């Protein structure tokens, strides 16, 4: 845990040494939120397959973007850190201090996670304060969905970090997964709008369950209402998180055997 705090502090110091770093994060999120809002205005009442959130596409898409952003970062940040360290040749120095692999993973994602919370808050505040969406939201329900969802995504993220460590080039797991998430996960258009067989496929993705649970929570759904999503996501987290950790440990060991922690 000390290691994770040390990374958090260091990442924050580096980040804040760039003047305007926070400004750009907030401005970027606001820009996206604005675009989503205008698309919603343009679509208007034609968005008839959106039953929730008073039928407003803007509210639907804004919620999708806000949480997609957060979960997607949970997924991608580990492999991004690993490949960044690999390219800079700093993976070995990071593995030298006496910290375990799972601590290292936690350390890699703690600060990016804080940043993504900042961005998600910007989206939510934009919708809630400026546009008056989600006034009956149930925070507890949202949290109950978010925690197992984020853990699942971290587990998949660790798997994908392991694959980066082993294969170096790109990150097939993350790529395949992000394409599927963008199209099937229901962030930008409702799963119900897709053909039946795609809907079945979408049910395999954690994002589908996460976003449907979060949307219920935003509409005021109680813990009981989101219980099915929480159950699915918890089961997924229980599988994905240990699998990801084991895979990463195995990948580190294998890289040490091959001497492939360094670019050669």
């Amino acid at each position, binding site marked *: 845990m*000390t*290691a994770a*705090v*040390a*990374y958090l*502090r*260091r990442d924050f*110091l*580096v980040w804040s*040494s*760039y003047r305007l770093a926070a400004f750009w994060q907030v401005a970027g999120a606001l820009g996206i939120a604005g675009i989503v809002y205008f698309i919603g205005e343009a679509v208007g009442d034609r968005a008839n397959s959106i039953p929730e959130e008073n039928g407003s596409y803007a509210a639907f898409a804004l919620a999708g973007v806000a949480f997609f952003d957060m979960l997607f970062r949970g997924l991608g940040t580990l492999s991004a850190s690993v490949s960044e360290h690999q390219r*800079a*040749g*700093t993976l*070995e*120095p*990071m*593995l*030298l*201090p*006496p*910290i*375990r692999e799972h601590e290292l993973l936690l350390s890699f994602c703690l600060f990016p996670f804080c940043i993504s919370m900042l961005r998600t808050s910007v989206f939510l505040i934009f919708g809630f304060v400026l546009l008056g969406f989600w006034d009956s939201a149930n925070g507890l329900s949202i949290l109950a969905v978010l925690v197992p969802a984020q853990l699942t995504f971290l587990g998949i993220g660790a798997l994908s970090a392991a694959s980066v460590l*082993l*294969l*170096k*080039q790109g990150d097939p797991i993350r790529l395949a997964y992000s394409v599927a998430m963008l199209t099937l996960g229901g962030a930008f258009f409702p799963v119900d709008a897709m053909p039946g067989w795609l809907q079945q496929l979408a049910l395999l993705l954690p994002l589908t369950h996460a976003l449907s649970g979060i949307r219920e929570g935003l509409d005021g759904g109680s813990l009981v209402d989101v219980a099915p999503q929480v159950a699915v996501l918890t089961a997924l987290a229980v599988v994905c998180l240990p699998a990801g950790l084991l895979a990463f440990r195995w990948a580190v*060991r294998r890289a*040490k*055997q*091959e*001497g*492939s*922690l360094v670019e*050669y």
Partner: protein
Amino acid sequence: MTQFVVETDDLVMAYPQQRGWRSLFKSLPKKVVLDRINTTINRGEIFGVAGPNGAGKTTLVKILSTLVIPFSGSARVLGLDVVEDSLAVRRRIGVVYGDERSFFWRLSGFENLLFYASLYGLSGKEARRRVSQLLELVGLQEHADLRMHHYSSGMKQRTAIARGLLSDPELLIMDEPTRTVDPLAAMELRALVKERVIDSRRTVILATNDMGEAEQLCDRVAFISHGKIQMVGNLEDLRGAFQLDEIHHVVVSGLQRSSFGFLRDLVSSIEVVALDTGQHQLELRTAPGGPAVPVVVRRIVEEGGDIWSCSRKQLSMDEIFAMAVERGRQTAAEEVLV
């Protein structure tokens, strides 16, 4: 519990020649870069690992610091197995790299060290005190709050040394610490290491291809080339291994070139070179430790010669190095694959 700080047993490292997904499914040929290394390092010793580029020095020290897992054989550091007890080993060693890339240039030296201090389990006041103390030790206290991208390469290496010492390790491993700095900074770094880093409680491993550095700092040196330790010992041992005769140079005037025959019986061999100054330089080879020199000197004087200088010529570390590499090449197999 052994008394050795490092102990290797038939240590072999072989790197795969290709990587990628295919290596996950079948084993590809590997090139052997360390071939059955057996060595021990004593507590408190400054142990040099010397050898030309590509000899395997870095590979050896990476195995000892748990960053590379050997192909076969084993290594123990402070009594702990480097593979099985990797975490415990890392807790008790410090490492200094030659090409320092692991600092964050937008942060000050102080902040960088504080970060690593936390990774070694130091926190709060204790961490700050340790960092200040080390910055002073390496002579950077005045630049503690300067962002590291303003540091010269010598200053970065000093910071690296400070980082290596954060946990007050029993074993400090340095891999070519002066490789990236200019000669003057290198000299200062060596002085720093000699005067402030080395102390009787600490064992130091210094990988280097600079023989002068090895000579200046190390108690014992292992020469690696072609994957094997060609020789190991202190300077005298190493010289002894190659230099069978003592060599002396004597500069003489007042005698004809042809008249040195009277020395023949006293030495194993003699060579005479006429110098521009009209003097002659004699190169005498004699059995080591024998009484030849005083006898030779007296005889030259008795024959009417004047002696201007008399000096013993020793093999330089560079010459020993060259011979060790040559010996490695002669005994090396073509290229070992496993």
